[in-house]
């Protein structure tokens, strides 16, 4: 009977748009809805799984550290043994490659700089020809319109994703 009165109070609050009263009345009413309880063994089972997982992770961590130490030691040993012959070969080859590559590098860089200056001069002349104040203003206006449209579209999409477009 008391529930029925509470229900009537809630429905009346919803109908008249009294948000706080509706919230309070509904909270009181909803307290009667039972929670879905887990089985009797749920806590024991879950605790056992959590402990098992923790033990497994500890074992994996210990194994991982041990494996990393072995690999590091083996790597160090192999590096020490191979260092002398390999490093001499590497230095010799590096010097040879550098000495052969340097003239080509300088030549290509010089050619590239020449082309760059030519392109820059051409671009400069074109810009002087077309960049009158009215054209520049029109260009800025078009860019502003584009930015505004993009911003508005982004806002709309965000609202739509949140399901608030019609709120």
């Amino acid at each position, binding site marked *: 009977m008391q529930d029925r009165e509470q229900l009537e109070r809630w429905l009346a609050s919803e109908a008249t748009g009294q948000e706080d009263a509706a919230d309070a009345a509904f909270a009181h009413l*909803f307290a009667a809805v039972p929670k879905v309880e887990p089985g009797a063994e*749920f806590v024991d089972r879950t605790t056992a799984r959590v402990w098992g997982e923790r033990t497994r992770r500890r074992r994996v961590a210990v194994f991982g550290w041990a494996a990393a130490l072995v690999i590091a030691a083996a790597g160090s040993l192999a590096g020490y043994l191979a260092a002398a012959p390999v490093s001499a070969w590497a230095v010799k080859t590096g010097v040879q490659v550098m000495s052969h590559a340097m003239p080509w590098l300088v030549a290509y860089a010089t050619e590239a700089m020449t082309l760059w200056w030519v392109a820059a001069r051409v671009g400069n002349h074109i810009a002087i020809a077309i960049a009158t104040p009215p054209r520049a203003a029109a260009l800025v206006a078009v860019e502003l319109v584009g930015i505004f449209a993009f911003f508005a579209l982004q806002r709309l999409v965000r609202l739509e994703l949140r399901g608030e477009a019609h709120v």
Partner: protein
Amino acid sequence: MSVPPSDAELAKEALAGSDAASRALIARYATPAVNFVFRFVHDRALAEDLAQEGFLRVFQRLNTYDPERKFSSWFFQVVRNVTIDHLRVNRLATTSLDELKEAGFEGAAADQTSSSPEHLAGQGELAGALEQALARLRPEYREVVVLRYQEGLTHPEISEILGLPSGTVKTYLHRARKELASILSSKGWGPRLNV
């Protein structure tokens, strides 16, 4: 009379390796977790499995928990993610119960039409009707109702769990209550409301 340790304290002890603290935390959140997941999947065994997965993930990531935050918010966020991952993998839509039914998810569809008499026997008639009406809501409305009115979380906490603005949470709650009122009214529990 000693004060029970807070969630954050238990979490800290559990992180330090205390099995007793881990167990206490699991016992404290077992019902909220299973109840919350059940509202999505409508299958008790599956809800228990997913809640257990949630606990595993919580304990795996306990080192990332910030004690400044409320533990329950963080906990429900993790459990919710586990549930959503499961629903995604199983290609179950989370947008509407009708879609769940179309996808052949009988567990979810079962509560839309009726609850078993045995299920209703243990609770009041109105509580049973409310539970049935709750099962007919869209999942996003259902979860805010459960978090607000069963777990007693505040709007900012729910907003943090769901990753939604607080205003949207309030809107969802308002609409959910309206829909519940409409469903109950249509079942003869009161005057019909225009939603």
